[in-house]
């Protein structure tokens, strides 16, 4: 198991790393559009700017981190770059498989048996090799370590690799260009790669911008950690419809989140379903449950009570990979 790491070593992610990542991603990852919706502005009582990473290559923001990490691996490999391996509930799996395919590298992906069918099919469609395991964090890690040894593959974590965190941070650079007078940013938080990358960039370039994470109440390890001042992972694999956020906030992402994030807002399952309905019906976007956490948080009573000043709020819609056939069940309140 990985112990807690401190972030002041040579692996510390800086804005410069993120800017270099942006150069590597140019022409490969999409600079996704920022969309607005008058109805949601009225409901929130402020202007909302939705960074639509459901429209990113492979269907989620994770393509950014995966592409950056594999690019750096290829650059540092002397001859043939090694295969890559990861364990993922879906989005990082799809992202890694696509990025590897585009960069000419083999990808092995360990996925829980309960991962959405469309995610497994997508990984195979991108040329990735899927290895299924039982849906516990321990099984994911053990299976991945076995494959890494067997295939000589390099492990690319979905959220704890510095190059992955740098890649995710590129969204912050784009937001600073795309949203004039930005004062608040809110992102979902699972492993914490996105929140770590985005928060470190925002605070480095404009410390007045408030940065929030949004988490399901049922999977509130990041919120608890921030409140306690130490990382408090859950000892069980929580049930939430936000299937991409069941994973604990990881030890590499944690120091960045502790230093740069202003707060983490927790929302109920019903708040997530309500946000899903609003985004699908009013914005006409396919966004998965994990992806709507930011909107759920902005519409929550606790956000409205504490955030009087936030006027221009960027919300990252992190991805849109879900089984459409599960939609009625996901939206039933």
């Amino acid at each position, binding site marked *: 198991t990985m112990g807690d790491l401190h972030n002041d070593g040579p692996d510390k992610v800086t804005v410069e790393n993120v800017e270099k990542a942006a150069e590597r991603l140019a022409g490969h990852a999409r600079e996704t*559009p920022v*969309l607005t919706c*008058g109805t949601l502005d009225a409901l929130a009582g402020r202007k909302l700017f939705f960074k639509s990473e*459901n*429209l990113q*290559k492979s*269907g989620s923001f994770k393509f950014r981190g995966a592409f950056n990490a594999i690019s750096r691996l290829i650059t540092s490999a002397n001859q043939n770059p090694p295969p890559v391996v990861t364990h993922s509930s879906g989005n990082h799996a799809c992202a890694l498989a696509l990025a590897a395919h585009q960069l000419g590298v083999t990808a092995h992906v360990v996925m829980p048996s309960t991962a959405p069918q*469309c995610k497994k099919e997508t990984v195979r469609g991108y040329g990735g090799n899927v290895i299924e395991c039982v849906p516990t964090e321990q099984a994911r890690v053990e299976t991945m370590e076995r494959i890494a040894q067997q295939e000589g593959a390099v492990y690319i974590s979905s959220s704890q690799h510095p190059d992955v965190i740098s890649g995710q941070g590129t969204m912050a650079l784009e937001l600073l260009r795309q949203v004039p007078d930005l004062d608040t940013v809110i992102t979902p938080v699972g492993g914490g790669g996105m929140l770590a990358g985005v928060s470190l960039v925002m605070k480095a370039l404009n410390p007045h911008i408030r940065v929030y994470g949004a988490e399901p109440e049922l999977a509130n390890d990041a919120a608890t950690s921030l409140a306690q001042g130490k990382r408090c992972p859950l000892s069980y694999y929580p049930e939430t419809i936000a299937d991409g956020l069941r994973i604990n906030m990881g030890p590499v992402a944690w120091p960045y989140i502790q230093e740069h994030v202003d707060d983490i807002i927790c929302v109920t399952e019903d708040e997530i379903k309500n946000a899903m309905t609003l985004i*699908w*019906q009013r*914005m*006409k*976007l*396919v*966004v998965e449950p994990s992806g709507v956490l930011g909107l759920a948080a902005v519409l929550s009573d606790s956000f409205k009570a504490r955030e009087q000043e936030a006027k221009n709020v960027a919300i990252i819609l992190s991805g*849109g990979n879900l089984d*459409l056939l599960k939609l009625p069940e996901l939206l039933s309140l």
Partner: protein
Amino acid sequence: IERAAGTLSGHAVVTPVQTCETLDVLAGRKLFFKCENFQKSGSFKFRGAFNAVSELASGSGKSPHRPQIVTYSCGNFGCGLALAAKIQGATAHVVMPNNSAECKKQAVLSYGANLVLCERTPQGKATKLKQVQSETGAVLTSGGEHSDVMAGHGTMGLELLKQVPDLDAVIMPTSSGGMLAGVSTAIKSSRSEVRVFGAEPEMASATADSLRTGERRPLAEDPGSVADGLNGKLGALTWPYIRQNVDGVFTVSEDEIKNAMRLVWERMKLVVEPSGVVGVAAVLS
């Protein structure tokens, strides 16, 4: 159309053009999707509605009363008109078939328009329209049969010419013909070498049939395609523009429409209604 673009500026969204490599591979060509599902009120119809209301309101500038407008709509034009009227301080009355999609009825109401449900028959429609007009003096604005509406829709053609470099063909769903008439006029006036196509359900192929015979052909009443917005008649006002400017109309089966919907939702992550994907279905046919 250029004047309509000026009227719409700052009100209608200049919708983004999205791409998708998976669909390019399936189609064997580069596809550029103009996302009017992101338009105000959830469809391109807002463009024509807003332009028509604007022309009406400026025409009745001396009257102290709020302009009153009535329309018959299966949904999207009613929603577009309701929102356009709300923004411009006019009152919209929307006569809609009682079995229209619930979300379309709710949208009309949420924009503050007066919703009038009718039987989905020619008599039902006519009765309610006449009733509203006599009670309120509202001006009848058809979703298809109105030159201000066509001009508003045509603004999409102007945007596409700017947004898609080396554009060589445009394809769109068609029914009463307002979008096809407006967009084909915009495109052909500027770049006549760009091919312009319509796309229709096989079950509701009035435009394809009309182009083939050279004469405007009627449509069977309520053909019942899953593309519920395309069950309307090809209009007398739109037909001459279509006959002059359109290079062809493709027809697609119900299954092709459903398959295209699946692809757009799953691969492009866009919520698009069945009528909205008929152009995609045609390109993949």
